[in-house]
């Protein structure tokens, strides 16, 4: 495609951290940049560069621009069809206000409580389980690991119907969780993925640190809290951001856990807004933007952890 001339030496990549082999970065230091990418893109102005910029613009238009249009639509007076554009027509906050009158902030609060509580529970449960799995040897370890892996293969969709029965009448204690945030928070507690992730990470912590602390007479809980956990911060970041996005994306679980529509999360409530004949698409878009903001904030703040997490989780396989 492009016939690039030799390019000046590039700086070594920091992307290499996510490479499955962990190698390949250092040796590119002296390699001309045309060998940095599979297609041999050149960063000199020229035909190849122009083509790349054009393709990038198309990719942005397809994958990112739609977000601008919903934000524009949410702040437009009467958005429908052609009035969807990148900038709001007749900018107004009316849509947000109407969405507020329809209870969008209550739904949003539900979502925040569930996301916060669910994430906290999930991280606590995973840290405890991972500590046992990574730092202790005990009989039945393989079985426990398999059980946690199975929780990943048992998606909400498949167990939705019996789960809704269980939520209405929890065995042994006999509580009716439906209509409370616990009905969403508790089922999210055991997530195999973050258990696996943290277990793998904790295994790599050198035992010397632990042994030194043990000689000083540190107990198990303090060991976990003060010695192991601070070393796990990167893994906790990955588990946290992936967990948040997974919880915020929940649809079926909040739907079956609700007693009536006021228990919905903001993402589920969008369908309530849509079927409301008295509100226009601008109000639905306003709701969509409100539901979008927290995941955007988390992603932009922690995207580095997220991307490494996905790459690591996948290539380890």
């Amino acid at each position: 495609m492009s016939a690039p001339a030799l390019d000046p030496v590039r700086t070594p990549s920091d992307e290499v951290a996510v490479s499955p082999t962990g190698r390949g970065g250092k040796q590119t230091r002296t390699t001309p940049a045309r060998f940095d990418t599979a297609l041999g893109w050149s960063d000199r102005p020229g035909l190849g560069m122009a083509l790349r910029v054009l393709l990038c613009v198309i990719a942005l238009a397809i994958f990112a621009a739609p977000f601008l249009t919903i934000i524009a639509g949410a702040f437009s007076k009467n958005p429908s069809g052609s009035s969807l554009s990148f900038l709001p027509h007749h900018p107004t906050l009316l849509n947000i206000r109407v969405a507020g009158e329809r209870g969008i902030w209550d739904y949003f609060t539900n979502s925040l409580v569930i996301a916060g509580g669910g994430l906290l529970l999930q991280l606590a449960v995973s840290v405890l389980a991972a500590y046992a799995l990574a730092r202790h040897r005990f009989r039945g370890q393989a079985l426990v690991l398999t059980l946690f892996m199975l929780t990943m293969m048992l998606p909400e969709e498949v167990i939705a119907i019996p789960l809704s029965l269980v939520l209405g009448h929890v065995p042994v204690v006999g509580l009716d969780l439906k209509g409370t945030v616990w009905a969403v928070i508790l089922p999210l507690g055991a997530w195999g993925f973050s258990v696996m992730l943290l277990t793998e990470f904790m295994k790599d912590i050198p035992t010397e640190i632990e042994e030194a602390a043990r000689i000083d007479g540190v107990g198990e809980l303090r060991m976990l809290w003060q010695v192991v956990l601070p070393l796990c911060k990167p893994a906790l970041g990955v588990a946290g951001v992936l967990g948040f996005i997974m919880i915020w994306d929940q649809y079926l679980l909040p739907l079956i856990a609700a007693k009536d529509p006021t228990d919905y999360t903001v993402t589920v409530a969008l369908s309530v807004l849509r079927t409301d004949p008295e509100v226009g698409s601008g109000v639905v878009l306003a709701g969509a933007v409100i539901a979008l903001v927290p995941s955007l904030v988390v992603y932009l703040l922690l995207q580095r952890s997220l991307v490494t997490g996905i790459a690591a989780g996948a290539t380890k396989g």
Partner: protein
Amino acid sequence: MTATVTAPARRRGPSKKAVLPWLFLAPGLLLAVVFKFLPMGKGIWLSFFKVRPFLGDKWVGLDNYTRVLSDHRFQDAIGHTLVLGVGISLGAILVGFLLALLLEGQARSLKIMRTAVFLPVVTATAVVGELWRLMYYPTSDGLVNSALGFLGIGPVPFLDNPDTALWATMVMGIWMAAPYNMVIILAGLAGVDRSLYEAAAMDGVSLWQRLRYITLPAIRPALGVVLTLAAIRGLRVFTEVYVLTGGGPAGSTDVWMTRAYTLGFSRNDLGGASAASVVLLCVTLLLTVTVNYFRKRGDVR
């Protein structure tokens, strides 16, 4: 706590050391048992019963299974599930691969591009559904239709026409999944030995040969993972379809799980819905085990 009971008893009863790990595992195991495995067991159990509130459940054997599997709407749903699952998986891998090739590199502008292109993945499916419903606006001033208008193609009623609704859903699915695959494939590309490219350039091979013989083999492990994840996820596609079309129009986008959901929650046929879920669960587990088997065998060789 039942978990502690199963701790191994060493010589003089369960020692403190043997009990300890189980104390740490207890919260996770308890939650997994109550909210995952118990419902699974209950689902399997219910699938053999005609569930009648207040009257007591009646054992019907495999009736629910034969009923579900011979229902033509479920048979259609199998077809749609396969079309969507395969279409979204392959489409998202192809698009993800192209995106990865385009956005590979260390420049700061490329990193910003990748951040922007990744947005569909972090956005909740329900939000994506609302977004696409507006983009698919059926009149000529809808976003996609006005883009098609530039190409001289008339307005398409994407979601209102049974012939196009499934494809429209597939495009949205690809859009949501492709950037995720891009990240995984990029990680694979980062591991390609750069000296191979250099050597290939000296031998004067074409760009196509370079992709075919260096890049593709190098990212094959990453592709394998992507494909597996996608296939398993494809089978249980629910939210995408539910928020975009709800299975309509005229059942043309009904997939296995939306069908089961309708059966269970709208028609109150809990037995039939459970049977449908168990079938899906078995297929998912079978697929996972098969794939893992082949992957392990591939590793050994």
